[in-house]
């Protein structure tokens, strides 16, 4: 692992990614990853020494009740949060060696987040929401516009582009969020209970959409949640309890029958 060297700029970050992408077998790795929160005088061990290796193109589902630490794990893997101990690697790069800006760049270009509560910007249209990460990445306006349009069409929202989130249904909002996660063409999508706030039918549609993206685009998915239907489409299912992995098995690896 060469990620121990300090990395100075975004340019070197990119070139290092290219180099390490060839050298690393796993797109995401975690070793002895721990996160401890201090809640007043009480120490909360959200994640306890997790080891994880995720293959390229894998659809990994992590099941667990709320409070099991699965969301925290997702945040650690997606460079949104920093571990108390252990290391996380994204596309072979040791996140612990990166500074604030470089971590932001990982979130911008290497991973895409999908949340339970969609987390769309309320003042922006569907189009504007998808364009936002493209603007963060300094994509020229015309390209950003075309890209957002294309992505919204891909998730089935071509006609609803000009609506703001409050004018969209939950399922539609989650589709916008998925399109937004795909904006800068990351190879990894991290989804935190993507169906948790949707009805059964819409939830199934969203699960199927994620599976399709996994199959057709070769994107790697790590989906956390407690929706049992996720296990049907998953390649691998890990169960998490009290911050630790308690079981691991193969998933159905199938399409979701609706």
């Amino acid at each position, binding site marked *: 692992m060469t990620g121990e060297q300090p990395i100075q700029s975004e340019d070197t970050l990119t070139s290092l990614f290219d180099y390490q992408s060839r050298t690393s077998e796993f797109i995401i790795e975690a070793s002895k990853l721990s996160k401890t929160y201090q809640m007043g005088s009480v120490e909360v061990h959200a994640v306890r020494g997790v080891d994880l290796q995720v293959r390229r193109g894998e659809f990994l589902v992590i099941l667990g009740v709320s409070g099991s630490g699965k969301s925290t794990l997702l*945040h650690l893997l*997606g460079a*949104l*949060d920093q571990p108390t101990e252990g290391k996380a690697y994204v596309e072979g790069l040791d996140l612990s060696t990166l500074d*604030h*800006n470089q971590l*932001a*760049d*990982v*979130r*911008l*270009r290497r991973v895409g*987040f999908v*949340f339970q509560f969609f*987390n*769309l*910007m*309320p*003042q*922006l249209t569907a189009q*504007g929401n998808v364009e*936002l*990460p493209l*603007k*963060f*990445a*300094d994509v020229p*306006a015309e390209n950003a516009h075309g890209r957002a349009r294309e992505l919204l069409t891909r998730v089935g929202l071509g006609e609803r582009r000009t609506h703001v989130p409050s004018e969209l249904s939950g399922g539609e909002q989650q589709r916008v969020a998925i399109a*937004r996660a795909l904006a*800068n063409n990351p190879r990894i999508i991290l989804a935190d209970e993507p169906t948790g706030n949707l009805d059964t039918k819409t939830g199934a549609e969203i699960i199927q959409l994620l599976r399709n993206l996994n199959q057709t685009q070769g994107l790697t998915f790590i989906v956390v949640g407690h929706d049992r239907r996720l296990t049907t489409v998953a390649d691998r299912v890990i169960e998490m309890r009290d911050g630790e992995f308690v079981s691991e098995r193969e998933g159905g690896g199938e399409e979701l029958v609706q």
Partner: protein
Amino acid sequence: MKFRNILGLSWTNMRRRKTRTALTTLGIVVGIMAVVSISALSGGFEAQITDQLTQGLDMDILTVLPGGGILGGGGLTTLHMNDTVVIQNITGVEATLGFSQSGTTVYNETDGTLDTRIVGLNFTDLEATYGHRLRFADGGFPDSGSNDSCIIGYLEDPIAAVGDNVTTEILVRVGFTFVYVNVSFIVSGVLEEVGSSGMLPFDRSVFIPLDTYQTLFNSESIDMILARIADPTQADAIAEEISTAFEDQVLVIVPTAIINTVMGVFDIMEVFLLAIASIALLVAGISILNIMLVSVMERTREIGIMKALGAKDRTILSQFLSEAVLLGIIGGIFGIIIGWVLAYGMGLALPLLFSGGMTGGFVGGDGNGFGGFGGSSNFTLVPVLPLETIFIAICFAVLISVIFAIYPARKAAKLDPVKALRYE
């Protein structure tokens, strides 16, 4: 993130909360309005006074008074007619006029009395120095040998015509007592209205030969010497030369110096008023600080989302700062517009309020001194707002907004994305 995109997002955010944006801007609007209207009004006032002074003070006339230095400490106590020769010999001086004056009462048999001043001077010098400005309504300069002739300045209600006798009562010192002596003069000419002029007021004055004046008042000295110079732009240099010629024992008054002194007073007043108006801007800044802090709290979740999507700290920072810039620009523009309208309205209203004595008496005393405002009837106050002021006002508005937005913006930029995302 490109600046244009940041501005675009800021604009969207501000439009989302129109009322709040308007209220936040209001502070800036009021502050800039106060600053702009004060500076426009005082600019207009200055322009007006400069104009009046320039008209009233002949720019090509230097005044030489006895006494050295500004405070007149030491120096000559008196000037004499032969001093004019010294001044006359300085290059650039075209003509000199020495004179003395005193207040008195003049009357004639038919038309009653006139409180006036009597001025003793050489008529040839008067013609050489002021000939181009003086017009006789009737008559002309007396014959050179005549020592009992006079000319009378313009009067609305003339007390004498050419050829009439006028009598003046003069208090004369005889030994240790004072006695009133009546002296009569034959009017040889009546002047047309001159209006305001410098140290030598023409209207309402009675001019007699200097020799006669000095005999009457038992005096060999003169009050002051006026020097007409060829090139007003050389005034300072020539004044310096005159001073040097008298070993700094005289005081030379340059018309521009008078204007500068008056303007200096206005500048101090303006700075004082602007300082007060700036307090409004300070309050506006504090309200921006306050509202932005609330805004950061309300938008915590959005900030978390933006960070999760890969926004850097500096993107969030510039997001909030650019909102402050927009607030400043909008507030500045509206402040300037309203400030201008206010200044214009006050420019129309003020002369009505102060019609009469105030402005006339401000500089001129009796309206005949230099720079009298002609009874204020034609006094108008047009606010002056140069582009420079507009530019400075906008910059100031933006500066205030940005300074007070730095703290909330930094707070937003430093938010922990995970906590921010959980924020309800």
